[in-house]
């Protein structure tokens, strides 16, 4: 009898240990603690280009997380990406004219949304739309813009080689047009 009590004690300790490990993995390692399920309110924002923004990407304000991206869809009427942001309930006083920008963490890191407050007295409510948005910077566009401005500078600096100028003009025509999706 005493031996079976020992076995039960050990099994209890083992199961508790395993559950503690699971709890640790859930809370400390994963983002379960950030899941505030259906809490908070949802605001919408339209972007021309969301880049590689993902659902559950953080929404920050002055670098502090205030919410998460809850859904990304494409609006057929506006031909724009519709991003829904779930803002934590404690941040219930964001001005109505808050602007949203898609930024990249580090040079090649994950993309996230940064909010900058405006000055309005009215606040964002459930279902409000953020009007001021700035799309993601796509790396390829950035590179071609850079090349364009560089070539532009060269064109001004020297007009001695018309062949090269013509060649570069042809290349330059591309980036002016709206970026490919």
């Amino acid at each position, binding site marked *: 009898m005493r031996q079976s009590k020992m*076995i039960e004690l050990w099994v209890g300790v083992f199961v508790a240990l395993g559950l503690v490990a699971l709890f640790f993995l859930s809370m400390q390692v*994963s983002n379960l603690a950030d899941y505030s399920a259906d809490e908070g309110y949802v605001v919408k924002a339209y972007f021309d280009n969301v880049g590689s923004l993902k659902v559950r990407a953080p929404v920050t304000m002055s670098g502090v997380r205030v919410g998460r991206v809850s859904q990304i869809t494409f609006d057929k009427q506006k031909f724009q990406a519709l991003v829904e942001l779930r803002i934590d309930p404690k941040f219930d006083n964001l001005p109505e004219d808050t602007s949203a920008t898609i930024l990249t963490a580090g040079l090649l890191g994950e993309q996230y949304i940064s909010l900058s407050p405006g000055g309005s007295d009215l606040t964002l409510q459930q279902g409000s739309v953020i009007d001021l948005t700035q799309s993601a910077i796509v790396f390829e566009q950035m590179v071609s813009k850079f090349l364009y401005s560089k070539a532009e500078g060269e064109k001004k600096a020297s007009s001695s080689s018309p062949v090269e100028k013509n060649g570069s003009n042809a290349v330059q025509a591309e980036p002016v047009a709206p970026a490919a999706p």
Partner: protein
Amino acid sequence: MNVFIRLGETTLAMLQKLGRSHLFLLHVLSGVPGILLRPRLLSAQVFSLGVLSILIIAVSGLFVGMVLGLQGFNVLSDFGAEESLGVMVAASLVRELGPVVTALLFAGRAGSALTAEIGLMKATEQLSGMEMMAVDPIKRIVTPRFLGGLIAMPLLAALFSMVGVMGGFFVGVGLLGVDDGAFWTAMHTHIDFWDDIINGVIKSLVFGVVVTWIAVFEGYDALPTSEGVGRATTRSVVFSAFAVLGCDFVLTALMFGDA
């Protein structure tokens, strides 16, 4: 000609064994309600399969985590991305190494013991004797062991992952000077509860079924001689390893394939 005959014979024998093992599993599962009414039988098996495996699992987890921390740091520091060390260690442990290495160790530590135990019980007529006492040996002996393995495996895998993360933390933050906060926050934002933790638990549950199933079936199907039991034990470990790795590929493709 002879080669084809042999090939055909082997294939048929394998199919037959596969069929037997499935019928066996059904029989084992039919004993589950009876065992749940007698939890003491179950706790004895959770003890011998789970509790007695804690040490090997924890020690292996610690070292795997430490090696991950060391190797990860070497690679990541080349890109100036040491902050991602926590993510790397945690993701590889939770998604892959935790469930898979635990299952392999479990097959070696507990699976082989299960096969040998049941095989010897068969060889020494204990199972037969039980049948003559009007006790179904599959329900009385095999079912609690199967359930015990099923319960022990996810808990052991979680333990392995937790100890591994700590090992990685110890090496990365303690010895190599990665920033403490960056280690945890990066992990926090990149490891998803449903995609990573729950999928890892599902994996280890599947491995638990596969490894214990193979172990108890090989034991029950062993030739009742000492040589037969020895062979069955070897087969149990080898087949378990194959099955775990194969299942891992399929599960990974299903779970993480589209990401």
